[in-house]
């Protein structure tokens, strides 16, 4: 990928084809159903090229929701490791950002950033679908 034109083409493609994968590491479901809502007719993120993938090997962006519980910790890290580079992490919702209302619980480790390098934080409890789309687009603007 030494040629500048090739780099430009690849960047163009990456910005227009972000495939996401979702893992709830201990949240209350509120953010998760809003993430699913992204696919439905009102928000339809397929118009932005966003597809929800099932296998970590196919995904570019990991959407994390919920605080990280002790049982989920290792699984979350493994999912991230399985994803091929270049990959990004979005923390969806207040819990994923900081632990939210559950911070201080005996089984809660805190936000996702305790574990993974988070690229964009989308706060809100639960955060609205519009905010998530904005978060993904903010991330894509930074993609090189």
């Amino acid at each position, binding site marked *: *990928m030494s040629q500048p034109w090739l780099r430009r*083409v*690849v960047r*163009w*493609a*990456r910005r*227009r*084809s972000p*495939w996401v994968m979702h893992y709830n590491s201990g949240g209350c479901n509120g953010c998760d159903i809003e993430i699913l809502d992204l696919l*439905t*007719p009102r928000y*339809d993120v*397929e*118009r932005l*090229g966003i*597809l929800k*993938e*099932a*296998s970590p*090997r*196919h995904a*570019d962006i990991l959407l994390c929701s919920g605080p990280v519980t002790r049982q989920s910790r290792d699984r979350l890290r493994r999912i991230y490791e*399985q994803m*091929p*580079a*270049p990959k990004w992490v979005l923390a969806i919702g207040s819990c994923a950002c900081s632990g939210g209302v559950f911070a201080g619980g005996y089984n809660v480790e805190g936000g996702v950033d305790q574990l993974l390098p988070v690229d964009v934080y989308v706060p809100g409890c639960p955060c609205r679908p519009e905010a998530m789309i904005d978060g993904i687009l903010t991330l894509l603007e930074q993609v090189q």
Partner: protein
Amino acid sequence: MADLLVALAKLLLFPGFAFLFACAMLFAWIDRLVIARLQGRVGPPWFQPLADWIKLMAKEDILPTGTNGWVCAALPVLSLAAVLTASIYIPVGGWIAHAFEGDLIVVLFLLSLPPLAYFLGGWATGGVYSVIGGNRSLLQYFSYEVPFLMALCSPAILSGSWSIAEIAARQSETIWGALVQPLGFILALVGLIGKLKRAPFDIPKAKSEIVAGPLTEFSGRKLALWHLSIEVKTVVGIFLLVNAFLGGSGVSGLLPAPITFAIKSLLVLLILSVASVLYARLRIDQLANLGWRVLAPLALLQIAATVWIGAT
């Protein structure tokens, strides 16, 4: 020398690989768009399949430890090569790269190779979901392949030739196969849906059951090649059906041949898209039942009827 150049151009540009690539991207987009619109969504922009493909090509390519890298790389290439080779014998809009008596058999044989590669791809990567998906794709293969083959035999019997171009030409002179043999056309369509593993027969890659089936562990370039081979296969399958049942590119002379061919192909694509919106996914045993108890006997009936028509 000039002959060689023309042959190369035919192979690489039109109606060869470059053309097929463009068609694959276009058809994939139309398919996704139609499905989205029927579900009340906006759908992706026209360049979406291309962007997806380039992005996958530029991604890191990892395989689980303990798998044979060469095998995993060879399988999607094999699958793609088989469908590309098949495409050489299929007339497109009046142009034929290659044709001989009996090329229908060759095409059918080549089109049955990708499922095998798909199955082996599942075993080669070795994940639980991949293996189950691979097994299912093989089981599915046995269910749809026989009715599909028999359905495609009947136009050949009727026109008395085993060359695709010949069948299409004969039909455009007389009457479309789909009108004489509507049953055969429907059987071939159902078989094609099974072959392409499209909903409602997307059993080997059922997302809610086995993640992505045999492709679960593939990533990056290999995944891009798999996707491309599936998309090209869709195009080739549709072209084949248009030639065998809808009279190819020939028409009463109202429109130029390439345009009629394009319209017919899009029509078949539309049927496939609508079918995937309308039905829930079947179970593998339900598909096997459907294949052997319904489709296969109907296909036999169809052949018997064709032979009888041909005799009288």
